[in-house]
């Protein structure tokens, strides 16, 4: 197998007369690129990571077999970071640099935020209101579902209003879901399907899911959406996507009102300046901040687009709560790598006010093949070990909202530099008491289900041992007031008239729904706004 990450692309020089320069080829950047290129704009996308061509089975084997390294080559000198908060933040486990971005290894869960998520301050006096409402975003959510090819069913009584069916039929519930269903019925907990960016039937030239069981971190069949789809379409429409192009700073004009160049370095050591009329930052909730801060100038000593001083502040995550154990019968886990049932029944509760959603896992407990490759024996002894370990595990997960707090932030660690000599991002993050209380509530509901089902609970992840779901949000927040926010309701910087930010860094609050559908919806809306400025 050839290496998937190479420097095959040789011409990484700037595009002359570009209308739009986009930094980052993840879902946000790729969707904006596709939309604008399709409308006739000259678009260039600068991506720090490689283009992972070649056989996706290489990543599959790296994932399953110990000793082959990480599937997406994250964690080298390029990706240095500092974690300085009370809770260690494992940044490189939660992002991918490359064409496709973090959708290369994402799980593919795509829910809309709820109406209340856009107005938490008004409704509950916590967090912040978004400058836009669910109604404003609703048509873009529908368009995003079509773009990503979402498989879903209109069977969730707690979901926000929608006007159309999902583009693809939902994946039917698993056998494991049927075990939960009996207990949840008795507890009056409503289970429903999970919107999934994964083909339940052929769509957009990609295969339906065949069940490799490795969705996160890799889908060898191509059934799971990755932003490579939009990159490909953008390129077909004329966009130029440059990989291994590490943008190191943005330069502005003398008046300080416009960005005039994105300065990037390529593997040959050359540094280039890409000029354009409009600039879109789409490199995630951590690197967006880093790039703005690295772009400090005499006029903007605190970094670009940061006259408010809030760039990097209000870093938010979704926290995981979980519980699992064993049942007295087969549970049929690890056939697929995605979930087919959740409950959003408790999402809009006001006590706790933090959003929370509960998941019924289809991948509880060990996978025999993975265990075998780590075992310290073989033959009949191994067979017995594997057969005993597999078969009766069952578990629930949950995501819990973390509200925006100034003491959770991303900044530059000026003491530490990457291999190009640029200061690395510093993530300062901890889990506050309010979030801990919401995690405890998630555990309480999970415990009631486990008890009703008769599960012998073996593990709990809750307030004291929770971890992040790798959703980087809030660090370039959206708002109407330039003194307290970084971008406006259109995702355009308050300070620089041609600088836009796409992605979850603009979320003023993050709810407890996986963020990518909202990222896609905002990106479609942003592309429309830029289109409106084109001659």
């Amino acid at each position: 197998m050839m290496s998937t990450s190479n420097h095959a692309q040789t011409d990484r020089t700037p595009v002359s007369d570009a209308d739009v320069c986009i930094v980052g080829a993840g879902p946000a950047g790729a969707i904006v690129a596709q939309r604008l290129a399709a409308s006739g704009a000259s678009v260039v996308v600068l991506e720090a990571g490689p283009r992972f061509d070649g056989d996706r089975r290489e990543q599959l084997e790296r994932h399953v077999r110990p000793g082959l390294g990480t599937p997406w080559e994250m964690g080298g000198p390029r990706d240095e970071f500092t974690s300085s908060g009370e809770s260690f933040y494992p940044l490189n486990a939660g992002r991918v640099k490359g064409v496709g971005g973090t959708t290369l290894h994402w799980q593919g869960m795509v829910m809309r935020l709820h109406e209340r998520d856009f107005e938490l301050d008004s409704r509950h006096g916590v967090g912040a209101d978004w400058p836009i409402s669910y109604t404003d975003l609703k048509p873009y959510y529908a368009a995003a579902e079509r773009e990503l090819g979402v498989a879903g069913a209109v069977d969730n009584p707690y979901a926000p209003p929608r006007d159309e069916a999902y583009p693809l039929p939902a994946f039917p519930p698993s056998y494991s879901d049927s075990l939960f269903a009996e207990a949840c019925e008795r507890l009056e907990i409503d289970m429903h399907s999970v919107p999934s960016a994964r083909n339940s039937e052929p769509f957009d030239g990609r295969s339906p899911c065949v069940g490799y069981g490795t969705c996160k971190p890799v889908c060898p069949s191509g059934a799971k959406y990755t932003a490579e789809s939009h990159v490909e379409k953008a390129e077909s429409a004329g966009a130029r996507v440059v990989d291994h192009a590490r943008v190191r700073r943005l330069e502005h004009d003398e008046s300080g009102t416009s960005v005039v160049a994105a300065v990037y370095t390529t593997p040959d050591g050359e540094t280039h300046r890409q000029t354009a009329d409009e600039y879109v930052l789409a490199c995630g909730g951590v690197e967006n901040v880093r790039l703005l801060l690295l772009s400090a100038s005499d006029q903007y000593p605190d970094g670009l687009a940061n006259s408010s001083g809030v760039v990097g502040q209000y870093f938010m995550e979704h926290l995981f709560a979980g519980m699992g154990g064993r049942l007295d019968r087969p549970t049929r886990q690890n056939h697929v790598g995605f979930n087919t049932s959740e409950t959003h029944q408790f999402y809009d509760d006001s006590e706790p006010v933090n959003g929370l959603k509960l998941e019924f896992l289809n991948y509880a407990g060990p996978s025999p093949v993975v265990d075998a490759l780590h075992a310290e024996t073989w033959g009949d002894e191994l067979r017995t070990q594997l057969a005993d370990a597999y078969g009766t595990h069952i578990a629930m997960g949950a995501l819990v909202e973390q509200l925006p707090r100034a003491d959770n932030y991303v900044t530059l660690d000026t003491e530490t530099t990457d291999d190009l000599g640029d200061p690395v991002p510093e993530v300062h993050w901890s889990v506050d008491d309010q979030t801990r209380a919401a995690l405890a509530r998630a555990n309480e509901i999970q415990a009631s289900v486990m008890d009703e089902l008769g599960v012998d609970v073996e593990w709990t992840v809750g307030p004291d041992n929770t971890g992040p779901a790798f959703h980087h949000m809030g660090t370039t927040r959206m708002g109407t007031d330039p003194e307290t926010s970084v971008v406006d309701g259109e995702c355009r910087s308050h300070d620089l008239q041609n600088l836009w930010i796409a992605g979850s860094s603009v979320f003023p609050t993050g709810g407890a729904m996986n963020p990518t559908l909202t990222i896609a919806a905002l990106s479609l809306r942003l592309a429309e706004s830029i289109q409106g400025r084109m001659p």
Partner: protein
Amino acid sequence: MRLTRRDAIAVLAGLGIVGGGAVAIDRFDPPTAESDDGDRDDIPQAVVVSTMVAAGEVVYPSETEGIREFVEAYVLGRTRDEERGAQLRAAAAELDAVARDWHGEPFSDLPRDERDSLLRELGADTADPVADGTLSERIRFHVVNELLYAFYASPTGGRLVGIENPIGYPGGTESYQRATTAETEDG
């Protein structure tokens, strides 16, 4: 429980080595004593295959039948990748050389329990799998784990421990709704 070449080809297909096993099998020259010239620069495929088959008889459950056909097909498909193939061949040859040094016989001629002991004495049971590591690490990676992956990522091997569509094998959407393990190979 019987493994077949078809099982091996299915695992290879999951790894993207489509058709590789079948083509290689057609070209396979059955092992003969004459073809084993012991030249490390050109390790005879017969030594590699017989050593891997003999190791398979150790690391697979004792009830397994059809190991030779299965391992032959898997190894021949696997070694089509030049770099991995060279490393696998070298690791198998080194295991065979250790057997000759310590016991005066090829690894494949040793009784099963002696093969088991030899692998454990080499530390292949506890070593980390490292493709270009120490001898123990390489034997763990290229011999033990290669064989275990082939076995437990196949529906037939997976079924033996309760899952007919193991992680890494494309078939889970056919089985995730079922209450019981499918007995047939329709995956």
